[in-house]
C-alpha cells in the first residue's frame, strides 16, 4: 500500500460533500451543476470498471497465464478480441462466436440450476404438513401452501376464471397484493436508508454536527 500524492482526507470529504449537494440540486430543478456531476459519474464509473476489469480479471486470468506460456489461453483471448469486433459494423458478425459461447454456457448452466434451486427446492418446501403439528405451525404451513397454489392459479390462463375458479383466483390476487404491500414497505425502507446514508456522510464527516 502506498500513500497517494493527492490523497487528502479533508479535501476528499469536501469534494464528496460538494458532489453530493450537486446531485441533490436536481430536487429543486434540473440544472447544469447536476448534469455536470452526472457526466463526471459516468466517466469515473467507466474508468473504474476498465481498471478493475483489467487488473482483477484480464491480467490474472489471461495475460499472466499467457506470460506463463499457457498457450491454451490464446483461444479465449482470441474469442474475447472477436467480441470487440461488435463495435465495427462490417465485422460485427465475428462477435457472434464468443456471444454464442457465453449464451450457450449460460443457458446450459441455467437449466439445471433453475430446476434444482427455483423449482424442486421451492416445491419441496411447499409440501408441508397442515395437520399433526401445533396449531400455529399448521396455520403457517396452510397459509404458505394456499399462497403458492392460489397465486400460481392466478397466472394459469388455460382455465377460464369463472365460478369456483374465480374465487380461487381472487384468493391468489389477495396473496399477491399482500406480497406487493410487503414489497412496497421494504422499498420505502430501502430508499429512506439510502438517504440516511448520505445524511450521515454530510453531518458526520463534513459538518461534524453528529458523531
Amino acid at each position, binding site marked *: 500500500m502506498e500513500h497517494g500524492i493527492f490523497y487528502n482526507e479533508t479535501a476528499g470529504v469536501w469534494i464528496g460533500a460538494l458532489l453530493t449537494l450537486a446531485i441533490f440540486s436536481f430536487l429543486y430543478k434540473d440544472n447544469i451543476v447536476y448534469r455536470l456531476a452526472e457526466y463526471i459519474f459516468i466517466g469515473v464509473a467507466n474508468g473504474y470498471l476498465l481498471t478493475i*476489469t483489467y487488473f482483477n*480479471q484480464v491480467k490474472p486470468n489471461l495475460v499472466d497465464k499467457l506470460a506463463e506460456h499457457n498457450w491454451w489461453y490464446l483461444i479465449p483471448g482470441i474469442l474475447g478480441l472477436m467480441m470487440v469486433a461488435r463495435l465495427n459494423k462490417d465485422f460485427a458478425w465475428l462477435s457472434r462466436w464468443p456471444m454464442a459461447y457465453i449464451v450457450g454456457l*449460460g443457458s446450459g448452466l441455467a437449466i439445471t*440450476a433453475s430446476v434444482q434451486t427455483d423449482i424442486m427446492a421451492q416445491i419441496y*418446501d411447499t409440501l408441508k404438513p397442515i395437520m399433526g403439528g401445533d396449531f400455529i405451525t399448521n396455520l403457517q404451513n396452510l397459509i404458505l401452501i394456499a399462497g403458492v397454489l392460489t397465486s400460481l392459479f392466478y397466472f394459469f390462463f388455460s382455465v377460464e376464471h369463472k365460478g369456483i375458479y374465480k374465487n380461487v383466483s381472487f384468493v391468489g390476487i389477495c396473496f399477491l397484493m399482500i406480497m406487493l404491500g410487503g414489497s412496497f414497505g421494504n422499498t420505502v425502507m430501502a*430508499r429512506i*436508508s439510502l438517504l440516511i446514508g448520505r445524511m450521515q456522510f454530510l453531518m458526520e464527516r463534513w459538518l461534524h454536527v453528529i458523531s
Partner: protein
Amino acid sequence: MWEKIKNLDKRIIYLCVALSVIIPMLNPIGLPIVITEETRRAFQAVDNLPPGSRVLFSADYDPGSEAELFPMNIAILRHCFQKKLRVVMTGLWPQGPAEMNKAFGEIKKDYPTLTYGTDYVNVGYKAGGLVVVNSIGSDFTIAFPKDQAGTDIRELPILQDVKNYSSFGLVISLSAGSSGGVVWVAYGGTKYHVDVITGCTAVSATEFYPYYSSGQFKGLINGLAGAAEYEKMVGAPGKGIRGMDAQSMSHLVIIGFIILGNVIYLTEKYGKK
C-alpha cells in the same frame, strides 16, 4: 383547501422527508431494536463456526446500496474476526472488493494482530456471476488464480490448501440484486451444499424470502434494520443502529402522506356523490 393540499409542491414533500431524517439524527431517541429470527439465524450461522474456519465473504453491491449493506459488511466482518474465522473476501460486482477494503479499514484498528494473507485476503472481483460461483465448486483457482494484489494464491497461507466449497465453512453474500445471493444459493448452496447466508437490500428482500423459508439461505439480514440488529448482536453499534431513529420517523412521515393523499381522494369521491 383540499385542492391546495392535493397540488402540494413536491419540494415541500421532499423537505418534510429530509427533515424527518435530519432531526432525529441531531436529536437521537435511541429506540430499542427488536431482533428478528432471520437476522438471528444469520448471526448463529457465523457464530457456530469453529475458530479457524474459512469464510467466503462476497460483497455483491455498489455505492448505490452502500447505505444499507456497508453497515452489515462491517458488523459481519467484526463478528468473523471476533470468532477468529479466516475471511476470504471477493465480489461479483466490480465495486464489491473496494467496499470490502473500506469495511476492513473501518475495523482494522480494533484487530491489530490480523495479518493479510493469513487471517484475511481479498481475491478481488470477477465478471461472470453464475460461472464464477459454479467454478468454485470444482476448483477455486479457476476463477481466482491470484489475489487482488496479484499474488499467486498458493503463496498465501490462508489459501494454500483451498480446493472448492468444501474448504469453506460458510458463504456470506451481501447482495444488492442480480448476481448476488440467489446465484450463490443456486450454484454454491443447492448444487455444492455449502451453507449460505445473505444480507440484502430491503428492496430485494421479498425476492429472497422463499429461499430463506426453504432453508437454502441459513439466515437473511434485511436492509438497514437488519444491519442494526446484527450490530446489536455483535455488540458494536454503528451506522445501522444510529440510523434507526431517522428510519422510524421518515416511515411515519410517509405513512402520514399516504393517509393524507387518501383522505383527499375519499373526500373528493364521496363529496361528488
